[in-house]
């Protein structure tokens, strides 16, 4: 099942993947705003994270060493972003109530941030490579 879903995402062009990432991110933000609570540990966040995971780790149409290099680099930057997000969240919670034990984001929250950043960076860098190639056509 997992392999089939991954292959299905792999068939999508970059624009399709970008649209899915955008929709899932918007969906999560709307969910967060409408529930009025940062603690959105329901089935929905699992869905958001799973979709982003499949989009990021699915094979590309033109899967080569450059694609793998860009994905690895995007993941490295995204992990630092996730750590910064978790630290900022904890610090904000501490500032709100200095006597209470500071809240920490759930693993799903952190994964969501990491995957949104990773997908966005990869799609941006891959698009930049394509744009430059289109700007210098032929010999």
């Amino acid at each position, binding site marked *: 099942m997992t392999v089939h879903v991954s292959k299905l995402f792999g068939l999508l062009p970059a624009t399709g993947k970008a649209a899915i990432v955008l929709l899932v991110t918007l969906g999560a933000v709307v969910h967060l705003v409408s529930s009025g609570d940062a603690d959105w540990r329901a089935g929905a966040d699992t869905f958001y994270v799973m979709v982003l995971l499949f989009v990021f780790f699915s094979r590309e149409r*033109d899967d*080569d*060493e*450059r*694609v793998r*290099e860009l994905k690895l680099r995007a993941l490295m930057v995204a992990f630092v972003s996730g750590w910064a997000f978790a630290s900022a969240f904890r610090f904000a919670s501490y500032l709100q109530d200095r006597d209470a034990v500071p809240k920490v984001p759930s693993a799903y929250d952190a994964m969501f941030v990491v995957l949104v950043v990773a997908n966005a960076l990869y799609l941006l860098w*891959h698009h930049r*490579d*394509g744009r*430059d*190639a289109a700007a*210098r*056509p*032929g*010999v």
Partner: protein
Amino acid sequence: MKNRLRELRAEHRWSQADLADRLGVSRQTVNAIETERYDPSLPLAFKMAALFGCPIERIFESDAP
């Protein structure tokens, strides 16, 4: 790392897409190498050398002094 990929490609009158097909990579990857934003792996560099029929040192030049 500096390279002469664009020059060699022009000598053979190949487009980026032609070279990408021959190397089994995407056109974006060829462009990233030509613009020196990406250094290819050793197997890909050997493939380029074999394709152009010249040693790797003729295609790539190290930045190191």
